[in-house]
């Protein structure tokens, strides 16, 4: 480690606070305030990773979130390890452990580096072209390709950290706390706007906060001093909230933005416990001011990717902000004045600059004269044609550019260096603006895309709006914010600026070399190893759209989304294709701007909070009695109750038999319940159900079938008339919300003249169904006051009653075909009434049964389950339920569709019963049904929808849909399975008690 790399003159570094960290198993030291990148550079380390495709050594290139190369694996434990972290964004803390990615066995010696030598045979589209044939080999290729692809390692166990989401509503959101962002926030907050200012860095002020140059002054003060006073002032403002370490990830329509706030990542590990690590801010802003600044462009030349080649602005930031010199023998390579600012920062600290290579023939700015005065050789009109040094740059060669900039002329000169700062001008960071739907325009003078049409109440200011000079930035910020916020007082009197920079630039997208393009590696996308050569190849092969070139060459498809090189890719495409830059547009910038952790995205919605689930009031009893649960919609329903060592089949057989032999009890609380009231309630039911409702007497129940307007079965359930204008409708468990929505839709939009009101009361009642030959004896014990005689309380009727003085509704309805009662009681009494029923049924072997047994029992009776036996392609006629479709009613939902040419076809799939030749053989639900297996291709007639072994019938039963099945009674069909063909006979879907005697059996 060479000590003279650190100049302890920065106020951003706390040199009294030494921090130790590990990189690639070696311990280093940095200071509080360092990023991992600045601390590594201070230790003389440039080489931090290997590139994705060629495994070329790569170093730290930038100082911010645009970093393409220095992406590392953070943490070494299996739960917190995080891949693809940008070393330039990680603030160091005591105990930090990081390592290089994409290299084996080590970053210094990487086996994969062989790809670099093989690169002539690894052009763009190599994988597409090579592994296409033969198609059947793909599975074999895939294994090896997947093994060698991908960056970093994902954690193996659950993330132990805490994340959360937070909503923020503000009048004005300012994104970016550079000089224009600070000014905008002050103007907004001081004029009464509730303002939020966010910045991704750990400090405010952007790049101006370390601008100590005599060449940029505001009101005769050094820029950084002026800005510090401004920051000091705004930090005291009451209606301004400032969030640092907060990166806006997405800018959606209607000024809805997502931002990630980093709360603990910079703290020593032992100070993070029980603290929220990251917070996803969901921001809804009335007005948005985007001040995201700009990103310095690299230059595209042969071998422009070696460790030690960095953006010139990054070199300046490292020395000014962190007090770190990136090299001891520096060369700057530029096409504009930015590099001269870097040069001045280095000169001030006495750091050696060997030369400046400038593409421009003429340079006319105060700052360049000042640099020249310091005896620094400037090569005007020159370009770098090659670089040398494997793990770190050690030499460059330069040549003179031709007049048109397309070729190089003259002799080659070699210059030594250990760090090369490049500057290709600036690219406005318009990513968020375009995410919001904004349209860009291309500015020819300096070849940049800038905001043009705003889709919402927002504005872009500062260099993200294409203002690069200090004077322009301040002047335009003041005037546009005044207009944007419609304020009289700008809070700034006069702001005078001095800048020694000139905005001249000589833009050449692809710098020429003395080698032919085929022999060069001029990287455009550093992370994905896409070169200028690849882009040209794509164009030669016929790709024209920028989106296609992007995908073919993978330019801009890395985790950095090509923040550095996308503009060059566009430039090279338009130059090669001979088109204008603005015509191509840009590739789509997609959220997130920088990668988000999964933890941030899901927030607190992990584990049992991952999804909502609903429990019935009797849930705890089911748990206590060993129930297995099944998810039905959002509900947790008891599935079956295994006893001793029973498996599911054994439990269901026992439960099913008990329900028919003596008594069963089911928690039916999940059934949807809709309370329907109003003078037109009967008429309403007439219109929504297929059968007639006007004549249903008070106190009676009726089964109803509901269709979609296309005639297909939508839902079913029993509805009870509680009073003259009062009904309670039950729906399927899963369909409850949709049925209510559909009914509301018709009421509000088609039939607003009807006097009907709907309320969901699903959660208000617990529903307990007691069935079986002994159900009457049990219910009479639970509700002793009620006369249960068939005369007073026949099947399909309802009574109000009381249990222990609590009002309840009792319906005598049945989904099993057994004599049964449904007790509906206020939900919070559900469990105690259930327990009462269990107690009352003790002598009758009352058996709790779950959804599986319920399904089996109803299948014995041929009752359909909407959604299992139906799939939105079946009409009631297809289900052989013609009896429920009223012929007399003029209209109901779906009626007209029942005689469309398609719905009256005889060969539609129709519901039938299926009996297997071998009564012990149980069919698989979903199995295909065919008639002729010799025919090729075999015609599929339908499929099995429900299948069980019935312990009551002592044989296998099934329901299925079969083309023209209605007329196939007794016919033999085949269910072809993997190893055998199963013979079945089409049967009546009602397998048990066709006459319904069990319902009214004298008990």
């Amino acid at each position, binding site marked *: 480690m060479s000590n003279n790399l650190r100049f302890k003159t920065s106020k951003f570094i706390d040199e009294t606070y030494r921090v130790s960290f590990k990189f690639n198993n070696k311990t280093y030291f940095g200071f509080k305030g360092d990023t991992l990148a600045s601390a590594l550079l201070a230790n003389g380390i440039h080489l931090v990773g290997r590139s994705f495709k060629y495994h070329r050594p790569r170093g730290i290139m930038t100082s911010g979130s645009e970093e393409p190369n220095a992406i590392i694996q953070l943490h070494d434990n299996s739960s917190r390890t995080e891949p693809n972290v940008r070393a330039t964004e990680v603030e160091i803390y005591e105990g930090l452990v990081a390592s290089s990615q994409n290299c084996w066995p080590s970053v210094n010696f990487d086996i994969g580096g062989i790809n670099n030598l093989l690169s002539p045979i690894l052009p763009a589209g190599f994988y597409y072209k090579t592994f296409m044939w033969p198609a059947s080999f793909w599975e074999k290729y895939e294994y090896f390709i997947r093994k060698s692809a991908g960056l970093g390692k994902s954690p193996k166990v659950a993330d132990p950290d805490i994340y959360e989401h937070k909503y923020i509503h503000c009048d004005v959101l300012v994104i970016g706390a550079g000089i224009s962002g600070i000014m905008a926030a002050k103007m907004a907050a001081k004029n009464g706007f509730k303002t939020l200012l966010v910045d991704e860095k750990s400090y405010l002020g952007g790049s101006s906060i370390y601008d100590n140059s005599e060449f940029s002054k505001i009101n005769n003060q050094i820029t950084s001093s002026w800005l510090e006073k401004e920051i000091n002032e705004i930090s005291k403002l009451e209606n301004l909230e400032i969030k640092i370490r907060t990166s806006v990830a997405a800018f*959606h*329509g*209607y000024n*809805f933005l997502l931002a990630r706030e980093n709360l603990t990542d910079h703290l020593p590990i032992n100070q993070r416990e029980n603290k929220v690590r990251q917070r996803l801010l969901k921001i*809804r802003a009335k007005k948005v001011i985007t001040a995201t600044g700009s990103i310095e462009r690299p230059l595209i030349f042969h071998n422009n990717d070696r460790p030690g080649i960095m953006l010139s602005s990054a070199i300046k930031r490292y020395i000014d902000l962190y007090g770190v010199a990136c090299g001891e023998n520096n060369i700057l390579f530029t096409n504009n004045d930015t590099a001269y600012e870097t040069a001045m920062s280095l000169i001030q600290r006495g750091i050696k600059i060997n030369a400046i290579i400038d593409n421009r023939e003429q340079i006319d700015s105060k700052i360049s004269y000042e640099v020249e005065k310091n005896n620094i050789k400037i090569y005007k009109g020159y370009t770098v044609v090659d670089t040398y040094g494997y793990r770190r740059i050690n030499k460059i060669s330069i040549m003179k550019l031709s007049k048109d900039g397309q070729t190089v002329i003259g002799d080659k000169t070699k210059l030594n260096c250990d760090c090369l700062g490049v500057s290709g001008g600036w690219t406005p960071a318009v990513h968020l603006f375009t995410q919001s*739907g904004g349209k860009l325009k291309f500015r020819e003078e300096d070849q940049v895309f800038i905001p043009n049409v705003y*889709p919402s109440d927002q504005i872009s200011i500062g260099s993200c709006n294409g203002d690069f000079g200090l004077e322009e930035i301040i002047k335009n910020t003041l005037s546009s914010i005044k207009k944007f916020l419609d304020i009289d007082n700008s809070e700034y009197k006069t702001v005078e600026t001095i800048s020694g920079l000139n905005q001249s630039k000589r833009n050449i997208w692809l710098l020429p070399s003395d080698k032919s393009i085929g022999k060069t590696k001029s990287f455009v996308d550093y992370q994905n190893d896409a070169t200028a050569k690849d882009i040209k190849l794509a164009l030669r092969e016929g790709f024209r759209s920028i989106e296609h070139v992007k995908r073919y060459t993978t330019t801009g498809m890395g985790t950095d989304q090509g923040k550095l090189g996308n503009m060059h890719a566009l430039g090279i495409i338009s130059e090669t294709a001979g088109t204008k830059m603005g015509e191509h547009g840009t590739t789509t910038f997609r959220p997130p701007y920088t990668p988000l952790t999964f933890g941030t995205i899901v927030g607190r919605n992990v584990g049992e909070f991952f999804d909502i689930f609903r429990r019935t009031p009797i849930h705890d009893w089911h748990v206590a009695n060993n129930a297995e649960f099944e998810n039905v919609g959002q509900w947790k329903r008891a599935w079956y109750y295994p006893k001793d060592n029973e498996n599911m089949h054994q439990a269901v057989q026992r439960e099913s038999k008990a329900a028919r032999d003596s008594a069963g009890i089911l928690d039916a609380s999940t059934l949807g319940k809709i309370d329907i009231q109003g003078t037109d309630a009967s008429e309403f039911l007439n219109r929504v159900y297929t059968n007639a409702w006007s004549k249903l007497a008070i106190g009676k129940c009726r089964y109803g079938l509901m269709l979609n*307007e*296309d005639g297909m079965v939508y839902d079913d359930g029993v509805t009870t008339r509680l009073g003259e204008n009062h009904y309670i409708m039950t729906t399927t468990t899963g369909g409850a919300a949709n049925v209510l*929505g559909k009914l*509301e*839709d018709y009421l*509000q*939009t*088609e039939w*607003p003249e009807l006097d009907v009101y709907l309320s969901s009361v699903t959660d208000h009642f617990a529903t307990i169904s007691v069935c079986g030959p002994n159900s009457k004896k049990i219910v009479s014990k639970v509700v002793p006051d009620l006369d249960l005689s068939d005369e007073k309380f026949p099947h399909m009727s309802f009574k109000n009653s009381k249990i222990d003085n609590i009002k309840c509704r009792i319906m005598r309805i049945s989904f099993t075909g057994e004599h049964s009662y449904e007790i509906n009681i206020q939900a919070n009494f559900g469990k105690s009434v259930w327990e009462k029923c269990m107690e009352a049924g003790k002598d009758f072997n009352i058996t709790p049964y779950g959804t599986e047994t319920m399904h089996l029992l109803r299948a014995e009776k041929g009752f359909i389950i909407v959604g299992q036996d139906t799939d939105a392609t079946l009409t009631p006629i297809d289900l052989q339920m013609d009896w429920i479709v009223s012929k007399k009613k*003029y*209209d109901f939902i779906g*009626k*007209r*569709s029942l005689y*469309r*040419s398609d719905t009256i076809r005889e060969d539609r799939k129709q519901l039938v019963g299926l009996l297997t030749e071998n009564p012990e053989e149980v069919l698989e639900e979903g199995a295909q049904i065919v008639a002729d297996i010799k025919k090729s291709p075999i015609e599929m007639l339908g499929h099995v929808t429900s299948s069980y072994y019935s312990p009551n019938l002592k044989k296998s039963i099934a329901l299925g849909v079969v083309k023209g099945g209605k007329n196939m009674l007794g016919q033999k069909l085949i269910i072809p399975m993997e190893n055998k063909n199963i013979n079945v006979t089409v049967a009546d879907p009602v397998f048990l008690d066709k006459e319904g005697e069990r319902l009214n059996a004298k008990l």
Partner: protein
Amino acid sequence: MFLINCPFCGEREQSEFKAGGEAHIVRPKQPTELSDDEWAEYLFMRKNIKGVQFERWNHVHGCRKWFNMVRDTSNDQIKAVYKMGEKPPVK
């Protein structure tokens, strides 16, 4: 994510709403009088416009009311919201 001005509740997040397809399609009063083609026209045919479109929306996680919206599908700008049965305030 849209900010939708429910005509009954005021501005709310889009996540509280459900889109309900094209607006101003009236269910025929006498479906039995219609030919298969006429009924199919009502049942199946919907416009999918790039530009200004009239839509039904339901404040499903709010007041449960249905209402109409005029939206430009090319840029998602909501031009107007109005109650069921009302005439569109913009063309």
